[in-house]
């Protein structure tokens, strides 16, 4: 069956559709759902927001793709530019971390992974990224990987963390997006989404 030319290809899972339906009840209009819907999309599209993801969010919220793209690009946690590696390592280089040795952490990670800040390892496993204060400065120097904070970091802890992440099949970028979607939803809304997911599996 052919879809009309303005209907983009839709990739949201039944679970995602159920989540979005619940979110719509939290706000007086669809526009306010753009940010949470982008989190759903970032999870559904494997950790980033290609133009098709933007188009799908726009379509589902009855907004224009240009508007949704404009919103998405304002925020640093939406990966609109390119697909990050399976795990994104965010190194805080802001004030407290800076005076507590963040540059050593950056240098060690760059050496160990053989890439510079902003780059992804050739195997697509890790992306290194510098960030501003993650507001856990009591644990400086601090690193964020997906939904986890790690600090204070040193070389031994970095070694152990990388080792664990290499054996972690789930993308931490996707895990973060999913965690953020889940905190938006009430108990019964999460249950509804679970049922929607289960109904297609059976």
């Amino acid at each position, binding site marked *: 069956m052919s879809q009309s030319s303005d209907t983009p290809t839709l990739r949201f899972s039944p679970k995602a559709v159920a989540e979005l339906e619940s979110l719509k009840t939290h706000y007086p209009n669809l526009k306010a759902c753009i*940010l949470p819907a982008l989190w759903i999309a970032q999870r559904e599209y494997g950790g980033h927001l290609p133009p098709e993801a933007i188009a799908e969010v726009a379509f589902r919220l009855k907004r224009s793709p240009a508007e949704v793209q404009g919103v998405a690009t304002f925020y640093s946690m939406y990966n609109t530019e390119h697909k990050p590696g399976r795990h994104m390592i965010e190194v805080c280089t802001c004030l*407290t971390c800076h005076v507590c040795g963040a540059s050593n952490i950056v240098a060690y990670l760059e050496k160990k992974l053989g890439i510079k800040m902003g780059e992804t390892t050739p195997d697509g496993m890790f992306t290194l990224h510098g960030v501003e204060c993650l507001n856990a400065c009591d644990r*400086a120097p601090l690193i964020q990987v997906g939904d986890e904070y790690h600090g204070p970091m040193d070389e031994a802890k970095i070694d152990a963390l990388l080792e664990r992440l290499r054996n972690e099949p789930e993308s931490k970028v996707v895990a973060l997006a999913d*965690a953020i979607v889940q*905190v938006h939803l*009430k108990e019964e809304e999460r249950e509804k989404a679970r049922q929607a997911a289960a109904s297609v599996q059976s």
Partner: protein
Amino acid sequence: MGEYKLLLRHSGDPSYATLDGYQRQGGYDGLRKALAMDRQQVIDEVKTSGLRGRGGAGFPAWIKWNGLPKEKTKPHYIICNADEGEPGTFKDKQLMETCPFLVVEGMTIAAYATQADVGYIYIRGEFVDAARSMRRAIDEAYRAGLLGRNILGSGMNFDLHIHTGAGSYECGEESALMSSLMGERGMPRLKFPHAPLPTISGLWDSPTLINNVETYACAPFILANGGAWYASIGASTKNSRGTKIFSVSGHVNKPGNYEVEFGTPLMELLEMAGGMKGGELKACVPGGSSVPILNAEACQKAIIGYEEMMEVGSMVGSGGCMFLNEHTSIVDFIWRTSIFYKDESCGKCTPCREGTRWMFLILDRIRSGQGRMEDLQLLEDVCRQIDGRSFCGLGDAAAWPVAGALKVFRHEFEEFIRSGRSLAARA
């Protein structure tokens, strides 16, 4: 004076994050009392308490609470600003992780006083643990009839949602936060007197109350024990009442959150945090990256209080207190500060967008050893062009640390320019 654990009293007890544990420690006494009063009485208790906003500006809380129309013609909204992005600050994070019900109860009290129908907690995207903790608390509160319809049989209805950010410091600014919550880029909106106050026209043009996490967390104590009781804490200061949580970081032995009574000397806070590490005290940024830096001498004199901190040339701000030891290069520290503001400027207005870039470029030149003496004057000029001329507070916040450092540590900038490197680096 000194440490005074009110908000953080039970923060070490994991059961305090459950409804049972919370109520065992007197949780929800404040809301029960509030619901038995009329709305204006609740606002009057907050007025008596002297509570001032803990998000940075120290604006009297009751004025905002009192500012929403008493005759309701539209939905009323309340927002909790949990975007905590000011470098050096991590108190809201801990409050949400360990005392989530203080925030839920505080917001419910505020909702009652302002006739709000719906509340949103705007939590920064990175704070997953804090958001999960708030989620569990909200779910539990709904289950127990403490949120939703007919709360505690009082006839009051209040829905509370979590909305997360997605990486932007500017979204902590209240009008930008509202833009973001409404599904837009996180840009600030026109302010009073050019536009109505948010208490009249905020979210979706409806009356809106916005307060910081810590501000709401004070409300249960004020209602449970009375505004006069709260105002007796910190009474030695000019106009600061109650306690304040300081997030202490930098070169100290025990970084962490410490709650003190207003009127406590800054040096006592340093002692609580285990004293200096790796060298003598050189400087302190007492209230988050936006506030002017103090030298060791000023630290000795500084008393924690909104007016008292201004007397020594800085501010309480959000309570992000960074202590720096003698081996720290102030030029390098301020250079790093300038990167933050350059990157986080939303770009809407010229003084901030261009000014933060120029401040960085000049500081970068100095730091790389290519600085000229005239650069210091130039930096001061740029600060003056930004301060008070920007569309929102981020511009001012970017100028203050630079202007402050040039005043207090000018000799270090001069020495750096003369020799091409810093005093600290040579030491």
